[in-house]
């Protein structure tokens, strides 16, 4: 039997019927030895900035940090592919002793000369924070020599959690905002923050907003270019999708440029529609935008609804576990699962805050387990206790599900199918159905005795 560590108990809540939402412990450093699913500060920065396709991204540190984040998301680019390379200073023992600044400067000059990027990001790793390399000074020197922005990302791994890495990334990218020419940007213009063009999702969203008559100045950072980010301050509204990672950027833009922001999500029919209406409501001066948004939602929903209903019949009453990075995605997933008739039995995130967990408790059905910063043993324990049929997570959760004969849907950055937008909802339902109803589970020892007739019929 798997037991919870005593230190971990305040971070787990089981929703009781009728009980008010309790305050959960969260937002703290992971318990030593708990095998947390979280990564580090550096990872947070790296995943947020890496989709900027025409920038040079160089990891200042040992080769491991570079190798593990090489093309880590399936972030697609419609043009340059520079971001998909892995550049590093590959610090060696002598560099650690004598300092890595010279090596960094030489590496930057050599790479910038060869690849001609529009900007360069330098990610500091644990070791750089310890040996005290003055990365900012190197950035300044190289920027003067090469005449491109060279931006240090202060992402030393031990300096906090992944969330601190998001902040470091926002601070680095914010140095670009406001340096471009905003002429030609129309009155109905937005930025999308925290959308990373996984499997081409940004392109789906661009199409929706275009059909509504809204101009997208910059998508930060999915399929983005340095030039777009420099003029992002010309937009009238910021829509923040991955709120955990990009809210700090939105707040900085609000403070300095007076651009308001709204939290949105592009997963599921309800949230996707709400995201479009949010923008339409903001541009009140032109009522045709709202008309077009309504028209778009009608068309798109009509196109997928009948098929969704078919999946719903097959999936009715099946139970799911959700464990994702940010809690905001968990909200959308719970709604999306409801739409296809499924219940959420376990829901958790790596980086949710008190407010997120309060909201999750309010949304959840009685008996649902809500967990912060979980680990493989806990997740396995909950999956067994709740006897779930589906796990929604990322690479590290997949084998837990498969070993126990549970269906799995990858909703992390390595997904290959677009899950955003209306078409994304259909893809999601298809993927969930394919996995939950797969006849293969009858051969998994743990579930062998159960009949598959219900779903295979």
């Amino acid at each position, binding site marked *: 039997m*798997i*037991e919870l*560590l005593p*230190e971990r108990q305040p971070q787990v809540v089981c929703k009781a019927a009728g009980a008010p939402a309790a305050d959960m412990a969260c937002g703290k*450093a*992971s*318990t*030593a*030895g*708990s*095998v*947390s*699913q*979280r*990564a*580090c500060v550096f*990872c947070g920065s790296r995943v947020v900035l890496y989709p900027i396709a025409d920038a040079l991204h160089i990891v200042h540190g*040992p*080769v*491991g*940090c*570079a*190798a*593990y*984040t090489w093309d880590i998301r399936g972030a697609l680019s419609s043009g340059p592919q520079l971001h998909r*390379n*892995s*550049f*590093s*200073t*590959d*610090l060696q*023992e002598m*560099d*650690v002793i004598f300092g890595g600044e010279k090596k960094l400067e*030489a590496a930057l000059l*050599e*790479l910038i000369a060869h690849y001609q990027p529009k900007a360069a990001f330098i990610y500091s*790793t*644990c*070791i750089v*924070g*310890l040996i005290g390399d003055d990365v900012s000074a190197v950035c300044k020197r190289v920027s003067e020599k090469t005449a491109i922005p060279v931006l240090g990302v202060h992402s030393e*791994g*031990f*300096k*906090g*959690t992944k969330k601190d890495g998001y902040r470091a990334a926002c601070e680095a990218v914010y140095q670009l905002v406001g340096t471009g020419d905003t002429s030609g940007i129309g009155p109905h213009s937005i930025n999308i923050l925290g959308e990373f063009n996984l499997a081409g999702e940004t392109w789906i969203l661009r199409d929706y907003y275009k059909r509504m008559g809204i101009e997208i100045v910059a998508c930060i950072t999915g399929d983005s270019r340095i030039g777009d980010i420099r003029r992002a301050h010309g937009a009238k509204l910021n829509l923040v999708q991955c709120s955990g990672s990009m809210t700090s950027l939105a707040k900085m833009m609000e403070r300095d440029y007076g651009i308001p922001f709204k939290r949105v999500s592009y997963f599921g029919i309800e949230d996707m529609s709400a995201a479009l209406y949010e923008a339409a409501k903001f541009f009140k001066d032109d009522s045709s935008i709202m008309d077009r948004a309504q028209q778009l939602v009608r068309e798109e929903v009509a196109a997928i609804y009948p098929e969704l209903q078919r999946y719903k019949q097959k999936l009715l009453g099946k139970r799911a576990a959700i464990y994702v990075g940010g809690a905001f995605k968990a909200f959308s997933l719970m709604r999306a699962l409801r739409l296809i008739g499924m219940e959420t039995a376990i829901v958790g995130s790596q980086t949710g805050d008190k407010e997120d967990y309060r909201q999750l408790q309010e949304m959840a059905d009685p008996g649902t387990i809500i967990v912060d910063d979980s680990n*493989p*043993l806990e997740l396995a*324990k909950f999956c*067994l206790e709740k006897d779930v049929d589906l796990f929604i997570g990322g*690479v*590290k959760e*997949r*084998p837990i599900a*498969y*070993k126990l004969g549970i269906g799995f849907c990858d909703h992390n950055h390595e997904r290959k199918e677009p899950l955003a937008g209306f078409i994304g909802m259909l893809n999601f339902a298809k993927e969930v159905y394919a996995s939950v109803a797969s006849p293969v589970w009858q051969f998994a*020892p*743990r579930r062998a005795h159960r009949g598959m007739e219900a779903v295979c019929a």
Partner: protein
Amino acid sequence: MNAVTEPRTSRHKKAHLVSPLSQSLVTSAVTNEDGEPRSKHFTSTRNACKLCTPLGACLVFRGVEGCIPFLHGSQGCSTYIRRYLISHFREPMDIASSNFHEESAIFGGSSNFQQGVLNVLRQYQPQLIGAATTCLAETIGEDMPHLLHDLREKHGDRVTAPIVTVSTASYRGTHMDGFHAAVRELVEQLAGKSEGEHPTSNIQHSTPNGAKRCVALFPSMVSAADLRHLKEILVDFGLPFTLLPDYSETMDGATWSEYEKLQSGGTPIASIRALGSAQTSIEFGRVLEGAETAGTVLQNKFSIPRRLLGLPMGIRESDAFSMRWRKSPEAKYRSNTSANAAGSWTA
């Protein structure tokens, strides 16, 4: 030799056979201080296909029965290595971390290490903890023997499993160095001499000769399928052996009927402990010439002859491997000649 390998083309045509890549290497060749030619030197790495030292160590530790890898450093190191190995093997890979934060980086990670180890013992009930260091721990000068000493002094009664430590700073070598270092440290810190028969080697054989001294095989970083095949070969030769590491089951298993905290399989710890009385050791990997390895540890500590062979790929190296077995007086398939030659394992 040249006559065989040179393609039958005219001199004029041959120029085109040089690929653009090798051409650029040739033209950009420069010399270093010693006047030796080398290809153009880059300061940065570009798409380097090497990983960091602790990854190799973690893989080795999952090739030991009931062993959980433990990284002394930032949370990210363990999560990245987990993610990488999970993607590769499609198997769960739990790696604990002492999860440094800023204070640990300044004041040392002793309390994190203690808390981490105790939590891991409590949750996983492992038979062994394989503790590898990271850049961060190495650079701030964490003294692992001292940390272990402190841990035992403070919580001795709760430390229910042995802990093997290995120094794996990422800026010193690659995943291969971490791999070999972990195998070496397992042998260095666990192996001892034991008397008589070896009830503990991976596979038991009843052979007419009675008690057998096992052969230690250190196969280097090969796939789970390769490990399985090696075991088949060893069984066919009828010799007791200890294969270290052996992740053929832990990292390549089927679905479960119950949750396994640590996948079953791997080299039994008792077999590693008994390596001090192995009859010989075989190590694969010609690059290990001159390195300090598990084989040299056995050689120096217990005077066990060491054989360094290439990976048995291709006819020549596979023959070399099987010839080694045939020389053993206890092997089932030895030929008459080698039997007459009183073949025992000699260094």
